[in-house]
């Protein structure tokens, strides 16, 4: 090997922070890395037997079913300095959505930063929340059912949301960074598929990269 991956990804002298790569490809989801948080037995989170299937987060047909995976109880990422890249798509289904990003706890974390693709919205959105107050900023890209590359960067005083390499939204208020709550801890990545109609919702994720900046 001419150069190490570390050399390629970092500048000389850098001490890299924590980083993870997940391909979501192969025989079985690594459940030593990912916790499945499923509403009930009708929801699943398994690798898909399809070309570019990735991990399929699939709900049942009960309203507000959730199919989610996250690193439950392992909050390793600094709220004021971490980032994520993911490749995902939401399959067409009434009332379905995905939320992919960071949270400080599960379930119903009040401190989050994530990108949402929702049939009930007009556009993709960056959503942040600092306790009881949240902030949703529309992207310029309409919600759809295609694969896109999402990127979230958490800075000390802002959260940036990208789609396919373009900065689409910047939240500077109602972000987890602006509060200090005892026991709030740090971030964990989460991937969540939900629907609010009586139909199956499904999200496919083929790549995830998370690191501290």
């Amino acid at each position, binding site marked *: 090997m001419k150069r190490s991956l570390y050399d390629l*990804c970092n500048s000389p002298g850098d001490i*890299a922070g924590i980083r993870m790569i997940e391909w979501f*490809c192969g025989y079985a989801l690594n459940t030593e890395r990912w916790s499945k948080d499923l509403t009930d037995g009708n929801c699943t989170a398994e690798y898909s037997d399809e070309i*570019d299937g990735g991990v399929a987060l699939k709900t049942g047909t009960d309203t507000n079913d959730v199919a989610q995976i996250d690193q439950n109880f392992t909050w390793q990422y600094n709220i004021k*300095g971490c*980032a994520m890249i993911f*490749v995902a798509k939401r399959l067409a289904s009434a009332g379905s959505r995905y939320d992919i990003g960071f949270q400080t706890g599960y379930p119903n974390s009040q401190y989050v930063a994530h990108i949402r693709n929702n049939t009930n919205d007009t556009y993709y959105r960056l959503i942040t929340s600092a306790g009881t107050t949240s902030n949703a900023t529309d992207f310029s890209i309409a919600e759809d059912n295609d694969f896109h590359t999402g990127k979230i960067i958490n800075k000390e005083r802002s959260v940036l949301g990208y789609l396919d*390499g373009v900065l689409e939204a910047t939240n500077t208020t109602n972000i987890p960074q602006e509060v200090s709550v005892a026991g709030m801890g740090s971030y964990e990545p989460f991937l969540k598929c939900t629907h609010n109609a009586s139909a199956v919702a499904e999200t496919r994720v083929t790549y995830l990269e998370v690191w501290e*900046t």
Partner: protein
Amino acid sequence: MVLKQTLYELMNGSFHNRPIRAHMVEEFTATVPNITETDSSSDLGAFKAETVHGSAGSFAMTDGGLRIRTNTGAAKNRIGGHYNKSFNSNGCVYESVSRTDMDVSLNQGFGDSTAASDQPNHCVSLASYSSWQSDDIANFITFQCQSSTSPARGYTSTHTGVRTTLAPFHQKIEMKGVCNDLSINGTLCATVGLFDQSISSYTRPHIQAGCPLTPVITAYHNYTPPVVARNCYVSYVECYNT
């Protein structure tokens, strides 16, 4: 602590390109193989172990990576993605670093059924090293593609002219819309499935367009009568859709 570049950018060139698709990397470095030998919902592993012929095949980590050991006699032992077929025959790549022992054939690439002894659709290299054949003809790497459907049903094996040795080698299979290529140690050495415009047909068997595929690695003991089990070693596998 600043990440100068992301792995995503290094692999995909730019965020403005088509989003990266199915991709897997397995380096087979651990105390136990990253494979499962059962088939239940709680299984882990990048690969599923498939002992498809015989019952004494085994898997273990060694200094040379994953060891795939066959049963004695004419027996096959295999790992693959089992029912998860994420790769597209119109555009995917299989790369590996591996080596074989005597009297065993290391067959690897893509297939559409890891559980079947003979996969209906496959595109694999066969690196066979036989110590017992007097004419030495088996000791070359061949490239084999098979399709189960028209317009190019059947299979063909193309002699690469590259000798099999007992040393580790790198191979790369590139499946494209018009042909499939095999490179050994960085040199293109075989192409099958070229489309002949003059007759508007494939000249060689070619896997059906868009066929879902999974990586497949098979150790095939090709020496009978049974004497001893034989080994193949795999230290790196990378697959991706292009």
